[in-house]
């Protein structure tokens, strides 16, 4: 098992390099560069050229990438050209927001999606199944910004139960953190809950038909343990896989939800960094997201072994 984890981590290193290089080249292709923003609106073209030279933006793409990669190897992600603050610090401040948002969204996706999928999958074709199918399709159809506003208007403004904007770090005040997470979590989690429900439904429907579930029913086990132990554990792998896929979707949706709830997260940072062509910040964010995605995928793969002992004993 450990060997498998080590091997996966070793493969992560070239992957990160590939992603870093890919992101750098992509941003490089976008015309307009950070010098124009740094020099300020009133700057004359000469001033902008001067800034370009200072920042070394005239060098070839490869040399700039080399410089950046060199820094990364020593653990220094460089400083943001716009805010002149270390990228690591900027990401550090905002990572908490996006991680809690994605975690909350994932929690809702799993807590709502899996049971819905279970109910639908256990009795395919029945009305419960059709209801879940329609709701999941709607969940996938409603854009995040629409759902966010409806939630704000109903719960924050009219009922005043939950805050309409803002983020309170969990370290500061866990209760207020929870309150500030509910609405954005729902807004971001809905589409993911729909996707998880859809996939769990087909996974459960397939598992229910398997021979060993019939055996456990033939042995007179109560439905609770037949479903809870035998059906769920064997449909674990597809459900966990779809849950891990949600991380990428949630990171994407975070941009809109952070905007609607005025939460300073990585989503917002990405948009403003890309607009200002602040390359070190973009690279920092891309690498952070990549590390999160790779770790999640690794955890998911390791969980496969728990679900299917055959993988563990290989």
């Amino acid at each position: 098992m450990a060997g498998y984890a080590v091997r996966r981590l070793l493969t992560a290193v070239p992957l990160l390099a590939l992603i870093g290089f890919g992101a750098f080249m992509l941003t490089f292709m976008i015309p307009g560069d950070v010098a124009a923003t740094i020099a300020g609106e009133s700057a004359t073209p000469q001033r902008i050229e001067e800034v370009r030279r200072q920042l070394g933006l005239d060098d070839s793409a490869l040399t700039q990438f080399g410089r950046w990669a060199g820094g990364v190897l020593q653990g220094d992600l460089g400083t943001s050209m716009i805010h002149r603050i270390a990228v690591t610090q900027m990401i550090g401040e905002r990572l908490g927001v996006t991680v809690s948002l994605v975690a909350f969204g994932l929690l809702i996706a799993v807590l709502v999606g899996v049971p819905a999928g279970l109910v639908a999958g256990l009795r395919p074709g029945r009305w419960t199944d059709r209801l879940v199918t329609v709701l999941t399709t709607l969940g996938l159809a409603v854009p995040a910004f629409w759902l966010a506003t409806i939630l704000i208007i109903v719960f924050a403004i009219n009922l005043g139960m939950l805050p309409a904007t803002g983020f309170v770090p969990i370290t500061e005040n866990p209760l207020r953190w929870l309150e500030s997470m509910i609405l954005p979590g729902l807004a971001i989690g809905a589409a993911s809950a729909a996707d998880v429900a859809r996939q769990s439904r087909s996974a459960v429907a397939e598992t229910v038909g398997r021979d060993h579930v019939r055996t456990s029913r033939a042995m007179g086990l109560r439905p609770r343990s037949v479903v809870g132990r035998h059906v769920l554990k064997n449909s674990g792998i597809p459900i966990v896989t779809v849950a891990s896929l949600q991380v990428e979707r949630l990171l994407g949706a975070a941009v809109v939800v952070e905007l609607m709830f005025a939460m300073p997260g990585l989503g917002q940072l990405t948009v403003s960094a890309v607009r200002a062509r602040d390359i070190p910040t973009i690279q920092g964010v891309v690498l952070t997201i990549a590390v999160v995605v790779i770790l999640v995928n690794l955890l998911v793969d390791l969980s496969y072994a728990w679900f299917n002992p055959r993988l563990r004993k290989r």
Partner: protein
Amino acid sequence: MTTATAAEPELVSGPTAGPFRRFTRRLVRQPLAFGSLLVIVLLVITALAAPLLAPMDPNATDLVARNQPPGGGHLLGTDDLGRDLLSRLIYGTRITLMAPLIAVGVGALIGVPAGLIAGFWGRTPDWLLSRLADAMLSLPSLVLAMAIVAARGPSTVNAMTAVGLAFSPRIFRVVRGATMSVRHEVFIDASRAIGCTTKRLIAVHVLPNVAAPLIVQATVLLGFGVLAEAGLSFLGVGVQPPEASWGVLLRRGFDNLYMAPFQSIPSGLAITVLILAFQFLGDGMRDSLGKELRRA
């Protein structure tokens, strides 16, 4: 010379129809899928005949008659520049239908061959392509879109090509999984024993058996494509004014939510119906592929 011909029970009279005709006959019998097919065909007609159907010029502004409620001269009211919302919705059908098709098309163009190769050969090509897919998935699609659009100019086609790139890892994974399960089927060995070339094996035997899961994933992604286009247009990377897609209408209507709350309803409903249609059509197609595929 031949053995005694066994008394066969009379099979279905006449040769069974070609695959396509039987597929459509089954599809038509499912109300939900057939309804969705009708909706989509209707939309395609609307897109093609937009100039005839639209009551006014979609881009004609009337800054006096801004944010009009439905009724009066404008069936669905006007937007913040006084343009007739019904006409813009009708003209918007073109981009709204074209965008997801391009995205899924590009995604399939990359994802399907890669998935077939990774699924059929396995080992190093599979390992390499899977890691590449992981890398693609972790690149924020926003950076991807802006880079491509910046390099080749902002337009719906370029923006949706970027979305297609972001879709390709998802299609790759589905095709790879399906190919892997088909590769171990006995009829593959049978054809290999006959002397088929690998190319023919994949094209003639693997691809058709991979079609079912691929179609379902494609229709799901079509739904996502509609939303992705709206998101990118909002960031200025997608469709350029004065044209508009439903997504743009929804987002613009939404920004006027407090001014004119009814403005985002028509485009919102239209998008929801379109996505529902894609989803149910996908489910219907999967179910109507029939027994001959489900065995595989």
